[in-house]
């Protein structure tokens, strides 16, 4: 953010706080002392003081501080000073603040000098008579700063987005109608005109949609800024030295995503500090800088934002992950484990329990929670690690939760929407490609063996008689699943509508969307496919040299 914008933000904000002081003084004058009013005003002044300090307005900050002290005299009930007198002096104080702010507004490189006012106020607080020239106020100053920002209740933006969502649906519907009209009125000028107006409307609708989405966005710094203090404190308590670096923190995301992002990030960051980054001595012994570096970065890539948490610590301890995986029954002891398999394992539900928290030397605390949360946001999280070089967690999130791109797929005569964020790729397959391992259907693709979920069976729609089908490869971290569907119907933007939960949450369904023709399609909850798998097919993501040679294991399922 450039300096001008910073000053503007400061002034905007200061104006609000000054208004609080103004109205408080009026209220105190009319209604007498009210602890609640004083408390709120003290809060506003405190924030203003903090902001001024951050902006480097030292003298201004000190003046606010004295104003606070003076205000406290009201709540403390200073016997020597009458309320009207205090209110008068505070009123002068408000004007002095107002003038100072106006000064900054006129010349944003200026730094108000209030030393004289400071001295007289100090003397008054210490018990002397108040002797200061009443500040002259330029009437314009009462108007405050002309601001470029307004505060809007988020529910209003939500309502607007809903309307835009409807509009997108109607647009698609009109487009389909137009296709039919075109077919019937082939090459008639009327049809051409319709086509042109529809195209124009389409552009406007897209513009509107983008505009609303932008209005709902906040920079990721909103979340990032919560971490420096936390990192400092945790590092100190663990005797570690850590430098926290931000990159691309002005990348923007929908507020609803931002709101949910803090929790998973905290887990990952705590993990990095607890288990990733070594103590200074250990680091130096390895020839590394004693101070570890933790980098939080954000970057936008088309319709997604990629957030990375990167540390230069010891990396994931493969052996330890393997041991835990085996002891948890997540993998068998014949399974080889590469770093990719390990990083998928740490996200598995049941990989960690409280018992391991203290003695685990790798990482993996609550990472299944991270994974769950990110998936709820229609995003994906992966980990990448190399010994003593560090670990990078990569979170891929859609820009918005409300309108997402989805792959439309048909199964059992119904159409379902699969969020594109989950889709790796899709392939044509036939029955010969599907093999049985341990009574489970699997498919081998790109040297990976992955379980097959037939969507029609999963949903109890009965199995269609067909020769060929499509496999939509969906990825959870590094684990993959192949979802068998009858037909693919292309990609489109869908508006997510929640399903009523009165009757429980149907397994496999995340929500619904309304298509241009008015039909409702259900959106798949890709996450739930794995919880189904976890019980009886535990190592789908791991590479096997000979898929056929795996010895059957007793069913661990329920």
């Amino acid at each position, binding site marked *: 953010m450039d300096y001008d914008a910073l000053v503007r933000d400061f002034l905007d904000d200061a104006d609000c706080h000054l208004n609080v002081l103004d109205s408080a003084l009026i209220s105190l004058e009319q209604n007498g002392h009210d602890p609640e009013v004083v408390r709120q005003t003290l809060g506003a002044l405190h924030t203003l003081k903090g902001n001024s300090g951050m902006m480097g307005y030292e003298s201004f900050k000190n003046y606010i501080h004295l104003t606070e002290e003076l205000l406290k005299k009201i709540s403390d009930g200073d016997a020597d000073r009458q309320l009207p007198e205090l209110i008068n002096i505070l009123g002068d104080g408000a004007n002095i603040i107002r003038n100072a702010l106006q000064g900054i507004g006129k010349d944003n490189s200026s730094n108000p000098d209030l030393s004289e006012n400071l001295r007289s106020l100090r003397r008054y607080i210490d018990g002397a008579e108040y002797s200061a020239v009443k500040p002259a106020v330029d009437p314009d100053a009462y108007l405050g700063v002309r601001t470029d920002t307004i505060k809007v209740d988020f529910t209003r933006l939500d309502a607007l987005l809903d309307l835009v969502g*409807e509009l997108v*649906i109607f647009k698609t519907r009109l487009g389909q109608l137009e296709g039919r009209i075109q077919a019937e009125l082939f090459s008639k000028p009327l049809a051409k005109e319709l086509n042109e107006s529809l195209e124009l409307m389409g552009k406007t609708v897209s513009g509107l949609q983008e505009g609303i989405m932008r209005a709902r966005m906040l920079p990721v710094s909103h979340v990032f800024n919560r971490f420096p203090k936390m990192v400092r404190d945790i590092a100190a308590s663990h005797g570690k030295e850590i430098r926290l670096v931000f990159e691309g923190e002005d990348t923007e995301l929908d507020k609803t995503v931002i709101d949910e992002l803090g*929790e998973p990030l*905290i*887990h990952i960051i*705590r993990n990095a500090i607890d288990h990733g980054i070594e103590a200074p001595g250990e680091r130096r012994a390895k020839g590394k800088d004693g101070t570890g570096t933790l980098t939080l970065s954000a970057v936008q890539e088309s319709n997604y934002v990629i957030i990375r948490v990167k540390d230069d610590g010891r990396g994931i301890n493969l052996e330890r992950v393997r041991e835990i995986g085996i002891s948890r029954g997540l993998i068998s002891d014949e399974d080889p484990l590469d770093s990719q398999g390990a990083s998928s394992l740490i996200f598995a*539900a*049941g990989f*960690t*329990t*409280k018992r391991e*928290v203290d003695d685990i030397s790798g990482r993996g*605390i*609550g990472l*299944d*929670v991270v994974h*769950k949360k990110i998936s709820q946001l229609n995003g994906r999280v992966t980990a990448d690690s190399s010994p003593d070089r560090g670990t990078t967690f990569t979170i891929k999130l859609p820009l918005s939760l409300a309108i997402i791109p989805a792959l439309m797929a048909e199964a059992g005569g*119904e159409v379902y929407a699969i969020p594109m964020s989950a889709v790796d790729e899709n392939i044509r397959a036939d029955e010969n490609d599907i093999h049985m391992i341990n009574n489970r259907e699997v498919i081998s693709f790109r040297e990976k063996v992955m379980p097959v979920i037939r969507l029609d069976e*999963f*949903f*109890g*729609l009965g199995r269609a008689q067909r020769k060929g089908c499509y496999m939509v490869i969906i990825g959870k971290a590094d684990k993959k699943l192949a979802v068998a569907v009858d037909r693919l119907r292309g990609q489109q933007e869908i508006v997510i*509508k*929640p*399903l*009523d939960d*009165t*009757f*429980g*949450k*149907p*397994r*496999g*369904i995340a929500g*619904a969307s*309304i298509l241009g023709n*008015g*039909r*409702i*399609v*259900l959106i798949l909850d890709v996450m*739930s496919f794995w*919880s*189904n798998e*976890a*019980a009886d097919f535990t190592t789908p993501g791991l590479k096997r040299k000979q898929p056929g040679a795996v010895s059957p294991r007793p069913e661990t399922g*329920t």
Partner: protein
Amino acid sequence: MTEISLPPSGLAEDILVNFTEQPAELHLVTFSLGEEYGVPIRQVREIVRVGGLTIIPNSPAYIEGVINLRGRVLPVMNLRRRLRLPEKDISKASRIIVTEIGAKVIGLLVDAVSHVVRVPSGAVEDAPEEVLEVDTDYITGVGKLNNRLIIMLDLERLLKREQLETGESGDGPQQIPSSIFERR
């Protein structure tokens, strides 16, 4: 002040009846599920034809699916199935009664919608105890109108039971280990 005149019976309860909240008439929308049923008209938003149902897999059997009600995804309950009545195919006469129950809007699939009727509250009797089972407290009474019997449903109770039943079952074996990080 209302003037109280002594009722011809001279009985105290006949006077007291004037002071209870009970309205003199119940305004019902009645519909057919073989027998005639009724729900309070204030809970009925509108009545729509059946069409464009999308089935919801893995949902309770009595959920017929969802429909698009002017941009809203409306769940539709098959009331026959919910009340464990014999199945009947959707026909031309079938309707969806869009009801508003508390904050919920839910569609009820019925064989046909008959009338809007007014039943004097005096003509409502408790359902005979012998026909009620433990979980049928949503039948609040039987209204008698001319020669008809109207079974009156309390949708709030019907739905409350729903939430209890689905709430208990949970959704599968997935268990998330508790995290060591307290939520702040």
